Structures are given as structure tokens and as C-alpha cells.
């Protein structure tokens, strides 16, 4: 399901706008990360998108239909919202909490029926947290609570999932569990929009990113084009390097803040012509189809290509060589990297062309 914001503006006091004419969209199966410094209005943006706060001007559209014309029930059986775990109520057991996610499907005087119980059980099993069913939400860890809240959101059978800092305050493992869950859901066609304090998570997971600055400026686009040194400097006022960490399977991108920036921004790096080879190993037939589709979009850059299945191990090995703008190659590389079960490495040729 497609969610689009058209010319959204919001302010609490007229002279201090929070957002000015924000436009962006997220399609089915896409993950969109919302980044920005403290106080830029990330949570406010989520609340505006979902209509919990009303845009001062502009609108949110679900598959082209304005959400203001939808009933609360209609809207919230398509969209689900996962609040920050710390603000969640914890008096109920995990199962009771997940069951509350069925509210939009039940009328006022009815209690959950067998089908609702089954659904709640199903989503908890899908997320691997059914063993927590009878535990009270105040007796489980922060990571477990976050998963319970995601399960609660999924229980309403949504097509769009909106998550407010889902991986904040979690340890490494739980961060990965939450991020993997998002990737998995997006692969099954869910539209995911999430707030995050970690630009690296956006780089590693999201298709598109929206970077907010204080005062209402924003950048939206493919993640690799949004999360750049220049944009981070502008939005956060911080000098950062976007480093690449080579792992056995992938090259992961990471953002490391260096210092608070004082000077004027440097001239942006020129978008130079580059030659690069991307080596890809896919773990399934399904994924190799996805990759071929993606490569097809970059046919005009392609100067060489080799692909072969290695059936014995169920692997697909693909190597492509590209000639084009560095940013375009980085974009392709990034889009490949965020696919699940895919190893990707990009090597740029030295020298200028």
C-alpha cells in the first residue's frame, strides 16, 4: 500500500514552523527511515502522517485517498502504529497486549473471538515471541516489549507499519532482531516508516530516507543520496565520516560522528565518473530474480555482467561491472545491500576517467 504526504506543513506557533511543504511517499515493500536531530520533530512527523495531529496544510494519502476522509476504523485497520516502548502501558500480559491490536476489527460491545485469539497467536509465533504470552509486560525486557508492541500492531492486519524509534534503548542483538523483522515484513509487501537516531540503520536497511533539520528543512530520496556527509553536517551540525566496514559477506556502511562542525561547509565532493565491479552472492532463487530486476534498472551503466547458479549449494553468483556517476553506482550498491540474504561488495577502480 502506498502512503504519500503532499505539501504537509505543521507548526505549533505560527512563526516557528516545524515542517514546511513536506512531500514524500513510501510504496509497498519499502522501508523509509526518518532521521533528524533531537527536537526536529521526528515523532511529530509520524503523528502528522497518521492524522493523530492534523496537518496545518497539506494532506496524507493512502493509495491516493486522503486519510481525513476515512473513518478511524477504516484508517487504523490499514495503518498500524508502534509507539516507543518506554511509553507503553505494562499492566497487561503480552498476549492481552497483542490482542488489543485487534480493537479496530471488533465492535464496541464484543470481546475477542476465537479468530482474534488465533490471529494474535499467529503474529506472536511469526515474531518468535509466543513463549512470552502469559508474561506481564512489565516483567519482560525492553527488547521483548518492543517485539510485543510490533506484534500488537501486526495483529490488526495492517498494510502500513509506522514505528517510533523501534530500536532505541535496545542492545545490539535486540536492535538486529527489530531491524531484521522490519526487513522481513517489507519483503512480504509491508510499507514500513520508522524514526531512528542511527543514520547507519537507515543506510543498512532503508530504501528511502527523509532527513529533517530544525526549522522545517528536509531532504528526501534514496537513502544513499540522503545520508551523506554534507546532509549530516547540515542537519545535525556534526562532521561525520561514512565509513565502510568489510565483513565476510558484505560491505556495511556506517556513520561515525567525529566532531561538532564549526566551519563553513566544504565544497561537496564532485560526482565523478567511476568504474566499479559489484560482486553479489544471493541465497535463493527468489532473491536472484529480485536482483536481476534491480540490475535491469541500471542497464545503461552496465559494461559487463556474469551470472551463474551454483545449484549444489543453492547459491547464485553474479558479477557486474559498471561505468557511470559514482553516486549512481553507490545507489545501486546500497539497494543491493539492504536485501536480505544477499552478500554484496563493490570495488571502485583507482584513477580518474
Amino acid at each position, binding site marked *: 500500500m502506498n502512503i504519500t504526504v503532499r505539501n504537509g506543513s505543521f507548526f505549533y506557533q505560527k512563526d516557528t514552523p516545524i515542517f514546511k511543504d513536506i512531500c514524500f511517499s513510501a510504496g509497498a515493500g519499502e522501508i523509509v527511515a526518518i532521521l533528524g536531530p533531537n527536537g526536529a520533530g521526528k515523532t511529530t512527523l509520524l503523528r502528522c502522517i497518521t492524522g493523530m495531529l492534523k496537518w496545518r496544510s497539506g494532506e496524507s494519502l493512502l493509495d491516493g485517498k486522503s486519510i481525513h476522509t476515512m473513518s*478511524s476504523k477504516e484508517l487504523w485497520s490499514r495503518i498500524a502504529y508502534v509507539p516507543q516502548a518506554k511509553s507503553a502501558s505494562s499492566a497487561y*500480559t503480552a498476549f492481552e497486549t497483542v490482542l488489543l491490536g485487534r480493537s*479496530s476489527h471488533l465492535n464496541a460491545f*464484543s470481546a475477542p473471538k476465537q479468530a482474534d485469539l488465533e490471529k494474535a497467536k499467529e503474529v506472536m509465533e511469526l515474531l518468535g515471541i509466543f513463549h512470552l504470552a502469559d508474561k506481564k509486560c512489565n516483567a519482560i525486557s525492553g527488547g521483548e516489549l518492543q517485539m510485543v508492541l510490533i506484534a500488537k500492531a501486526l495483529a490488526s492486519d495492517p498494510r502500513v507499519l509506522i514505528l517510533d524509534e523501534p530500536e532505541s534503548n535496545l542492545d545490539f542483538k535486540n536492535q538486529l532482531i527489530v531491524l531484521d523483522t522490519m526487513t522481513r515484513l517489507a519483503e512480504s509487501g509491508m510499507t514500513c516508516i520508522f524514526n531512528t537516531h542511527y543514520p547507519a540503520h537507515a543506510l543498512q536497511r532503508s530504501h528511502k530516507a527523509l532527513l529533517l533539520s530544525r526549522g522545517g528543512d528536509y531532504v528526501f530520496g534514496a537513502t544513499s543520496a540522503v545520508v551523506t556527509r554534507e546532509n549530516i553536517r547540515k542537519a545535525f551540525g556534526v562532521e561525520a565520516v561514512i565509513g565502510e566496514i568489510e565483513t565476510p559477506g558484505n560491505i556495511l556502511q556506517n556513520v561515525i560522528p567525529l566532531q561538532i562542525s564549526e566551519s563553513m561547509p566544504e565544497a561537496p565532493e564532485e560526482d565523478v565518473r567511476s568504474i566499479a565491479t559489484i560482486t553479489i552472492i544471493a541465497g535463493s532463487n527468489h532473491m536472484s530474480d529480485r536482483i536481476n530486476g534491480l540490475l535491469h534498472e541500471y542497464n545503461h551503466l552496465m559494461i559487463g555482467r556474469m551470472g551463474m547458479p551454483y545449484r549444489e549449494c543453492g547459491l547464485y553468483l553474479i558479477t557486474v561491472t559498471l561505468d557511470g556517476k559514482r553516486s549512481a553506482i553507490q545507489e545501486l550498491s546500497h539497494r543491493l545491500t539492504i536485501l536480505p540474504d544477499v552478500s554484496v561488495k563493490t570495488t571502485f577502480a583507482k584513477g580518474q576517467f
Partner: protein
Amino acid sequence: MKTGHFSARWCILLWILPVAVGLLALGIGRVSIPAAQVFAAIADVFTGSQTVPQLTRMTLWNLRLPRILLAALAGAGLSVAGCAFQSLFANPLATPDTLGVASGASFGAALGLLLGFDLAGVQLTALAMGAAAVGLTWLAGSGKRKGLSSIVLAGIMMGSLFNALVSLVKFMADEESQLPAITYWLMGGLNNADYKTLLLGAPPILAGIALLFLLRWRMNLLPLSEDEARASGVNIGVLRGITVISATMITASCVSMCGQVGWVGLLIPHMCRMKFGSNHLSLLPASISFGAAFLIIVDTVARSASAQEIPISILTAIIGAPFFIALMRKTGGWSL
């Protein structure tokens, strides 16, 4: 996994408990009536014969039964109202009086007594002032910075305002006749119970309990954070409104019939939360059953322990507080 539904055993127990306690209470009082006679009298109602003496019949059906019915209604009603307010404000200290209902109703009753109204008149002024107090609280609390905590604050203010007005009425009352009447009335008691009082006071309580009982699963959404509640796809404003109106009807009507009966609205829901958890699917029915049984027991003690009737608020606290503390220490309490 726990679904919040009762097991069949608990379901039967919750139905039987108030009925059994009520039957037992019929036999207890300043004049003790043996169980055999109580059952004979009940059998008479169905068969139409008269096997028990006239005096026993009168005591049972005109004195004790309305009183037991009132105790059951008030106990169940105050527990449900307390439970609803605790969930609504996500505050374990909320009581049926949080929005100033009971203070307003007390003022109405005191005013009625001062002006020399008859019992029905006192009951009506109490109901009206209780509703007015909540209306004022809602208006005062929903100003520029809307939020449930500002409404709770406004409720505390409104409560103290009406308590001051009660004091003013007492100050103006005649020391010989009116002041003792007002004082006794404020201490709470079910001695005014008769079928006429019940006819006026029972419908709002029953309607309030029924409404909240039907909405009981949906009430689980009340303690959630604002965004979570909105995102449930339920019109949370309407749900809150219905909850407040129901709880107000119940509380105002209880106060109009038996004065301020403290503690029940705090004690019983907490007890039930410790035993059954926070899921209103079971919490609400349990509160109704235990609330009714508890107040029947306390009232029976109040009217039969000594020659002079003991005001009920004193007893609810004396019986309730130690029991509650013991339970809290045993279960480790609960959280909302």
C-alpha cells in the same frame, strides 16, 4: 495462554458469592432468624402460604432485604466506578470521587437536609449536585492544556470546593436537629434503605454497571498512552466520555442513597487486580461480585455488631485496610 476469560469454576463462584452472602445476611441482625426460617420464608414467597410469623416476615422483606439489595448495589457500583476511574486515569490512587462526584453529591444532600426536604428530595438534590460537580470538573480541566492529568487536578480542586460548601452548610445548620442529621448522613449508612429509595436510586447504578460491563473488553484501551489509544482505531474520546458518565451516575446515586461510603471503590478493584490481573474482561465482573459481597458483609456487621449502628465508612476502613495490606504483602501488589 490466558485469554482473560474466567474458568467455569470462577464464573459460578462469582455468581454464587453475593447471593450466598446475601442469604446469610438475611438471617443475621439484632433479631437472629434461623436459617430454616429464612428458607421457609423464601419458600412462602413462591408457594403463597404463610408458615413464618408476621414479624419475621416483616423483618426479612421490609427491613433486611432492601438493605441488603442496597448494599449489593452500592458495593458493586462503587467498585466498578473505582475500577473505571483507575483505568481511565492510569492512576492506582483514583477513586470514585476523583472527579468530585461524591463531594458534589454530599453537598447536594447536605443542602437538601438543610432546606428540610424529604428523603426523595435529598436524594434528588444529591444526584443533581454530583452530576454538576463532574460537569464543572470537566469544564475546568479541559481548558487550553487538555489532558487527563489536568482533569484529575481540576477534580481535586472541585472536590475541596464542594467539601468547603458542605462545611458551610453545616455551619449554617441548626445545631439541635439539622447538624446531627447532616453529620450522620455524611458518615454514610444504609439505614435509609427502603423500596422507595431503591426505586429512584437503583436505575442509574444498574444502567451504569450494565454499560461498563458491556464495554468491559474495550475498557482495556483506557490506560494506554494517548497515541497508542488513538492508533487502536477506536474513538477513544467517546469511550472516555461513556466511562465518566457511567461512573458518575453510579457514584452520585450511591452517595445519594447511603452517603459517603469510602474505601470500597479503591479496595475492591485493587484486590481483584491482584487476583485476576488488569484485563477488564475478568476484572470488571470480579469487581461487581466482590464489591457486592463485601459491602453486604460490612453492612451486616454495621447493623448487628452493637446496639447502636456503626457508620459504614468507619467499618469499611477498619475491615478493609488490614485485609488490603495483608493481601498486598502476600501478592507483591500490582501495577496499572
